[in-house]
């Protein structure tokens, strides 16, 4: 295969018509790399499993393999699972009723599960990481959008030692793709671009940040004050097909369109008010936008191995991709960890975090758009672990409504994404089922797939015991 300079693996594969990169765990439904659902973006590269195809640039001679297929990506017998009745796979993995432990059948079943677990063999060779680093200062700002840069500049102007962390390799990338301007970063700010702030410890005074490469040096940031400028993510519609390959959140779509141009489309854009601006930005990049509609108008995203169209209340249109710009919601993990959210359940007096939220993250979350219960049943909630709305509705009908219990019973949110966006959608489904708002999520746990064992080991000893 050929690729262009600057292509990520996922973009290069899209150019060659490969949209399916991963599969859901139980039903083996296809997933792609365009949204927040991580499982759809993980591939094995040169023997190392779970490499993020959309954050890894293509290199000459690279060996890229699709995960989750058996026995081979080209001859994948697991596809047949999709034709099994859904009830067979509903509880069959988390707690099989038929195959009880203490029998040879259970042992055989468990061995089969393990043989097919995880999608890819473990790496054969060890990975060594560069020694980690520690930074001590006054303020850590997470997010290098316009609000994060402004907060970092203001703190450094006030005499604080400031570290600005951003997962994006360039500051204000999303704002820039929509035509907005951001102030330059003050030269006195210690910047860690391309670092994912992946865990917050000790009431917000310790931040763990790591680059995405499995062997690059991770960093421990020790501060007195934490500023979250993490913005908002687009959740998209909660309809059938919302996790098909070819569905993109606006942020990813704009980034891809900048290199792919017209080959990203034709597409439908939906949103909660910003769909017009996103559609316009996509058009400027050469993408054909068939329609730009409010998110509630979308009834279903059509397609078997990727988006082929969208169904609305009265009509349907053909398209090759679907871009969502809302509902916009903040990834709750960092704030949760800073406030020691899990401990708050144990002890409401715990926690005294010095955390400030600024910018888009400060705005209220938009409620996920959820259809009527009947249309909701076979809507995926957690794509990685293949939890459908129906699985949740069965538990609520049985009287189980505690989010932590439901997480444990279904494994919802326990895959590579670690709870976002699925717990937000889960909350919306539960709210629809019980007729009351659910303002709770299971505990967001660090480090949320943010660093490898090698990177973490290279940090050992940098932070003393409390």
């Amino acid at each position, binding site marked *: 295969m050929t690729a262009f300079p600057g292509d990520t693996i996922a973009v290069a594969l899209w150019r060659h018509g490969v949209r399916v990169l991963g599969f859901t765990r139980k039903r083996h439904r296809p997933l792609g790399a365009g949204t927040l659902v991580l499982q759809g973006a993980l591939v094995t590269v040169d023997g190392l499993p779970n490499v993020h195809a959309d954050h890894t640039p293509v290199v000459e001679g690279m060996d890229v393999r699709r995960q989750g297929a058996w026995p081979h990506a080209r001859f994948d017998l697991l596809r047949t699972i999709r034709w099994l009745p859904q009830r067979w796979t509903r509880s069959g993995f988390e707690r099989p009723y038929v*195959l009880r432990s203490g029998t040879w059948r259970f042992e055989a079943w*468990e061995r089969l599960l393990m043989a097919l677990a995880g999608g890819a063999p473990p790496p054969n060779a060890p990975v060594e990481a560069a020694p980690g680093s520690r930074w001590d200062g006054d303020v850590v700002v997470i997010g290098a959008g316009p609000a994060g840069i402004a907060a970092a500049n203001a703190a450094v102007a006030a005499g604080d030692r400031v570290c600005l962390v951003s997962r994006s390799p360039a500051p204000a990338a999303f704002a820039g793709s929509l035509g907005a301007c951001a102030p330059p970063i003050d030269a006195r700010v210690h910047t860690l671009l391309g670092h994912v702030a992946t865990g917050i410890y000790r009431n917000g005074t310790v931040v763990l940040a790591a680059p995405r490469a499995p062997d690059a040096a991770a960093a421990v940031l020790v501060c007195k004050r934490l500023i979250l400028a993490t913005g908002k993510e687009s959740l998209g519609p909660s309809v059938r097909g919302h996790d098909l390959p070819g569905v993109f959140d606006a942020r990813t779509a704009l980034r891809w369109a900048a290199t792919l141009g017209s080959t990203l489309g034709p597409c439908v854009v939906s949103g909660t008010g910003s769909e017009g601006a996103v559609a316009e930005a996509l058009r400027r990049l050469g993408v054909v936008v068939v329609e730009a509609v409010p998110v509630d108008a979308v009834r279903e995203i059509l397609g078997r191995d990727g988006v082929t169209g969208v169904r609305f209340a009265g009509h349907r249109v053909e398209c090759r991709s679907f871009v969502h710009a809302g509902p916009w919601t903040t990834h709750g993990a960092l704030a949760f960890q800073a406030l020691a959210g899990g401990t708050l359940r144990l002890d409401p007096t715990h926690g005294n975090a010095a955390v400030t939220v600024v910018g888009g993250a400060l705005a209220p979350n938009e409620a996920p758009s959820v259809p009527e219960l009947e249309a909701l049943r076979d809507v995926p909630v957690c794509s990685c672990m293949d939890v459908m709305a129906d699985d949740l509705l069965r538990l609520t009908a049985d009287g*189980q409504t505690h989010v932590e219990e439901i997480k444990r019973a279904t494994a919802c949110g326990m895959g590579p994404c670690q709870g976002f966006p699925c717990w937000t959608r889960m909350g919306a489904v539960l709210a629809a089922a019980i007729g009351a708002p659910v303002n709770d999520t299971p505990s967001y746990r660090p480090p949320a797939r943010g660093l490898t064992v090698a990177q973490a080991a290279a940090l050992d000893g940098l932070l003393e015991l409390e």
Partner: protein
Amino acid sequence: MRSGDTPLPEHADVVVIGGGIQGLALSYHLSKRGVGRIVVVDAGYFQGGASGRNGTMIRGGFMSDAWTALFALANRRWIDLSRELGQNVMYSRRGYLLIAEHAATAAGFDEALATHARHDVASRRVTRRDLVRLAPALAADRVADAIYLPDGGVCPHHAVMHAYVESCRARGVDVAYGAAVTEITRSAGRVDGVIVAGRPLRAPRVVIAAGGFAPEVAKLAGVTLPGYPMRIECTALEPTRALLRPGLAFIDRLCYVSQTARGEIVGGAEVPERPQRTIASDLPALTATAKVYREMLPRVSGLRFLRQWAGLIHSTPDFGPLVGPHPVLPDLWVTAGWSYGFASSAASGELLAASMVSGTLHPILQPFAIDRFERNAPVREGGIVLASG
């Protein structure tokens, strides 16, 4: 799970404080032994405590006779637990490796094997070739000696906890979560009930099965329990295809690890802890675990940590449990101080239920009597993976 949909009764024969695996296993066996009205109350949510946060590893063999007698029985019960409860607990009998890196630790393995033999625990010393076959991912050249326990294994908590709570409810046990006990009431020098969710619940016997909160709950009755709450941390790596079949315990590194049927590699290395009541996880435990993995399981070094989490145990001076009647307050019973409580529950619930019905502490539980520190008779156990600051 289904808390608060039926009001709690005003009278019970036994009130169990704590709906973790110890409290539920005890209640199940009390009910089987004909105890009438049993009420389990828990301040938290279902599986919110250590029963839903531990490493899920189970073995019968330890170093001491006292521990091995109890856990040998527990391991036998785990193998048969699905049949006993009529529910799938998903116990996976995939074996357990105790690994020594230091010669001094390896020297203790002879005695351990003899102890295992005395208690009918299947165990054997592992040759280098055997080790490579059982755990190909292990850095075998770092291993001085290893013991294999073929009946050991792992059990996912969600399955066994579900099985216990369903079995208890099917037998008429009231189990209520989100129901906090604020007082253990006494009259005429004996326990006579609790105040739960603001209302009195009278019962001639009360059991403390409150995990890390046991010392605090004991204070509600005006008595003390030795020890303090301690955080234990655990981690999960992203799933991969089968890499580890048996569970592994690195005795010299205070680290344990196993792979779930979902493919996640779950384990943790202990760092010195102080008494504290938090379930916020911390960075040193993550990096310490990573360091052990990198050296002992080099192939996982390119895998990512999905998550880390913490749970509370009740740490006692010898890390052994406190089981039996409270020596000061009659009719107050205790099952506390557990550090390997998930693994022990399959036996400890049954033995404590038998003890409560007969009024005499079962011989297997007697070494763990609550007053053993006052009698200067702690239980020395060298085969556990725990550290305190």
